[in-house]
């Protein structure tokens, strides 16, 4: 295959419609006779519901239906949780609270009105009699002796315990010269996609057909779940994910509103729409991270790490969403990072608290892992008074060690960690940076250099290791006019599959990317698929596309060879022609061969007409992208302000389909990490009120907070798929927080400080500097 398009920085096919505002998100869709749903949400973090009085709301102008949790009892199953951990307790979230609310924002009632203002106004007429209960907000207090359990019939607030151990940990700690202990906190954050959630449902009683438009990353799984939750025939459920304006994992889920809006449409026989407000998005769409990690590291004096033990408290919130319990276990699997650590153990305690559920947020458990292990490397370096680069290099596996087996049971596919580190040091001019730092310190200016050498687990994944299928589907159909439709189960929400899959189609079939249309998100058009998450779209979804393209190409080669009288094996596809390699005059136009498949008069004997192929690709392993990020900050000693000075990102995601999109993914992820490191924190007060409840109180990074990201790549293809691609969607959030934390700790080293918990707000940094200045000087 000649690659005219794969590997080239093509501009995204999606962008013109997005930039011009011509795209259609759920809220842009309007149906005749459409009604609007609104949800009444609990202002209490923890309360018994004595009664819900809907009588006034039902009489309000425009209101056609109002329902409480009691009214729908039994009609809609609770929110599904696909993650299963042995002996985990029940934490199922009812779609509407019935007798108790367990977090601020939990829905208590729903109503439908003829317009959205009437619906909103009528919410004020619902009277709920709450009996406030003591909220449990702090996860450590939640599992302390005597804490009342959130869920009836349970003895405490421990949702599950999960353990993973590999290697001889006892021996490691026995052989250690030193043991370092540290507690680190990975704070709760709110993902904040630009488009909030939204659902539109339409029911045709004659046909019995239910159509649900939802802003989701997983249209097929949602279809199955809606059918299950409503006990409705799956064959009559049609789910569409139209344009989706970002998800970051929040839309890799099934929410009460998706089932309830569908239910309301069925009950009313009218289309019903619900659009999530930003405030609802903050309170009632999944949050991310929220782990407390207590670390113990066994080390040798030369910097060799012998063993790592980590006790994790994972704050799950009040209920399980789709993957809630699974997320911290990914931290366990990746806890040894890109280092040869022979023994490791993680003990996770999943805890119920009166908060919104945590679940998959860009990186999902792995940013927590890199944060943990990279903080360890820096602490080891500080303890031994060695450089952070030296300690990392000392513990890297060598390229010859791949495939490399970790003590946590994973097999890293391929890697050359030294190469990425060397390139990053070169791009950053590390030596010079250190000289500059020394010079500035003399002037009492506090520059810090942070290094993160990371590996992530991506391309999710083999089905054996996934809660609900790790494969992906693709159908390629060459239409009679010669245009190519690619139907992918990997439903994008900003990743650009319409571009990258078209590049692949163009190169495999020797045509132009403009001839290739990528179709996604519609369960009636696209074969059953899994969805876009876990940096899997290209590695798994793309491979399915590639394999289907190969199948179609093979058939076209046979047709073309039959027409020109040549050997199918020798046919070449280029410039919209199919010709014999040795004698290019034996050629047919691409369109002619396609036409032959449909007209079906000149096909080889026994060949079926048509030009369509479907693949369900099952990968044999995850992929393990890696790289090195270097961050330079300067801290203002007067104000505690952390300013980003430089950021170097060297990522290795294997082969690359479109470097422009790879860079975009890396940039976006790094910016989100800068958000978590410097500003973001979901704060619940002691009463369980989310006091960072909107964008005025929850600080997201802005363009002016960033510096230019100097991005470079090394290329180490994976043997796991024929494209050699690994995935890059989460690299930024996985790699960057430890680089920022390392830089801040490094800047604060003259103050005798080696670890500060995120976010590095001015106030906190100023306090650290003020408190420790005297001690050191």
């Amino acid at each position, binding site marked *: 295959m000649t690659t005219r398009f794969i590997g080239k920085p093509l501009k995204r096919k999606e962008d013109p419609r997005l930039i011009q505002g011509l795209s259609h998100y759920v809220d842009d869709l309007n149906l005749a006779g459409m009604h609007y749903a609104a949800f009444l949400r609990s*202002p209490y973090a923890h309360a018994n519901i004595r009664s819900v009085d809907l009588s006034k709301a039902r009489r309000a102008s425009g209101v056609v239906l109002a329902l409480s949790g009691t009214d729908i009892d039994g009609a809609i199953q609770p929110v599904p949780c696909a993650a299963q951990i042995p002996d985990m307790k029940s934490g199922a979230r009812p779609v509407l609270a019935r007798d108790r609310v367990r977090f601020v924002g939990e829905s208590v009632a729903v109503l439908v009105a003829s317009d959205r203002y009437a619906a909103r106004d009528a919410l004020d007429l619902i009277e709920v009699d709450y009996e406030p209960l003591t909220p449990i907000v702090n996860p450590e207090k939640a599992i302390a002796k005597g804490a009342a359990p959130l869920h009836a019939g349970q003895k405490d607030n421990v949702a599950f315990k999960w353990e993973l151990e590999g290697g001889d940990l006892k021996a490691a700690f026995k052989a250690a010269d030193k043991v370092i202990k540290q507690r680190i906190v990975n704070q709760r954050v709110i993902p904040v996609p630009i488009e909030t959630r939204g659902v539109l449902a339409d029911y045709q009683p004659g046909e019995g057909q239910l159509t649900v438009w939802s802003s989701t990353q997983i249209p097929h799984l949602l279809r199955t779940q809606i059918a299950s939750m409503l006990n409705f025939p799956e064959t009559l459920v049609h789910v569409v994910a139209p344009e989706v304006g970002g998800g970051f994992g929040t839309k890799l889920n099934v929410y009460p509103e998706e089932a309830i809006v569908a239910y309301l449409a069925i009950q009313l026989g009218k289309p019903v729409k619900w659009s999530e407000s930003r*405030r609802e998005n903050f309170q009632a769409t999944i949050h991310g991270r929220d782990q407390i990690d207590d670390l113990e590291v066994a080390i040798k004096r030369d910097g060799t790490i012998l063993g790592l033990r980590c006790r994790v408290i994972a704050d799950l919130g009040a209920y399980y969403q789709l993957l809630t319990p699974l997320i911290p276990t990914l931290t366990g699997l990746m806890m040894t990072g890109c280092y040869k650590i022979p023994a490791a153990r993680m003990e996770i305690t999943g805890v119920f608290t009166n908060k919104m559920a945590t679940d998959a947020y860009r990186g999902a458990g792995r940013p927590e892992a890199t944060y943990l292990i990279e903080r360890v490397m820096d602490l080891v370096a500080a303890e031994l008074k060695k450089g952070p680069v030296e300690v990392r290099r000392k513990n890297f596996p060598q390229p010859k060690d791949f495939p490399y087996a970790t003590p946590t049971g994973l097999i890293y596919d391929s890697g050359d960690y030294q190469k990425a580190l060397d390139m990053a040091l070169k791009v950053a001019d590390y030596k010079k940076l250190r000289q500059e730092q020394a010079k500035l310190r003399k002037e009492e200016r506090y520059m810090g250099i942070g290094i993160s050498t990371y590996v992530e687990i991506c391309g999710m994944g083999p089905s054996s290791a996934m809660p609900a299928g790790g494969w992906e589907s693709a159908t390629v159909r060459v239409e009679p006019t010669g245009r190519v439709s690619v139907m992918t189960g990997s439903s994008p929400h900003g990743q650009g599959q319409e571009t990258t899959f078209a590049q692949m189609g163009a190169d495999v079939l020797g045509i132009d990317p403009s001839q290739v249309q990528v179709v996604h998100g519609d369960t009636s058009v696209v074969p059953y698929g899994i969805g876009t998450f876990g940096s899997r779209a290209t590695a798994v979804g793309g491979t399915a596309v590639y394999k289907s393209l190969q199948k179609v190409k093979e058939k076209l080669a046979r047709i073309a060879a039959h027409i020109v009288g040549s050997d199918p094996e020798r046919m070449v596809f280029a410039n919209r022609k199919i010709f014999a390699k040795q004698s290019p005059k034996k050629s047919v136009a691409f369109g002619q061969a396609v036409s032959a498949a449909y007209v079906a008069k000149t096909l080889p004997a026994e060949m079926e007409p048509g030009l369509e192929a479907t693949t369900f690709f099952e990968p044999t392993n995850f992929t393990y992208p890696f790289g090195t990020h270097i961050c330079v900050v300067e801290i203002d000693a007067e104000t505690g302000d952390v300013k980003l000075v430089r950021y170097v990102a060297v990522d290795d995601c294997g082969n690359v389909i479109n470097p422009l999109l790879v860079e975009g993914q890396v940039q976006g992820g790094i910016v989100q990490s800068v958000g978590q490191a410097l500003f973001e924190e979901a704060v619940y007060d002691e*009463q369980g*009120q989310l006091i960072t409840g909107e964008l*005025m109180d929850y600080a997201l990074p802005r363009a002016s907070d960033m510096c230019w990201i100097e991005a470079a790549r090394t290329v180490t293809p994976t043997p796991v798929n024929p494209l050699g691609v690994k995935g890059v969607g989460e690299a930024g959030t996985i790699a960057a927080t430890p680089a920022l934390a390392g830089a801040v700790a490094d800047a604060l080293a003259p103050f005798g400080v080696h670890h500060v918990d995120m976010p590095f707000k001015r106030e906190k940094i100023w306090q650290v500097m003020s408190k420790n200045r005297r001690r050191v000087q």
Partner: protein
Amino acid sequence: MKLAGTASLPAPPAEVWSLLTDPSRLSRLLPGCERLEPDGPERYKATVKFGIAAISGKYAGTLEFAHKKPPNSLILKIDGKGLPGFVKGEGRLELRAKAGDTEIAYNGEAQVGGLIASVGQRMLDAAARKIVHQFFEAAKAELASGKGAASEPSSLGQSHARGK
């Protein structure tokens, strides 16, 4: 949310005490108070209109006096809810004679929930301080009108609110 501070009123403690514990006069001091009716011993039903920026609305609830030690100290309990959320709190007021005036030290804590907590959080402290300020200003005016003459100049003491 915690709220503590001092204020000075231009009247002796006995007079201030009678002002603060007389519901008909107290209702005039509470900013936005539309109704204050007896609801049992030392307990009143109250309707208060209150707003922070765009988040305004009526709160219905109760106001209760406890541990009354005339004219030295009392505890004031409030419990109200309305469309913008709920407020539940309790505060201790101590009255002390000081050169013919009364110095009031107040110290209280309130739980605020719902919309007002999630959206109005950063303005809550300032709004609470403003309400306290308005309350004591109204008390001064009430005392002045009760005397039928302008009182001596008085000033609000240092007050501070602290979010928690």
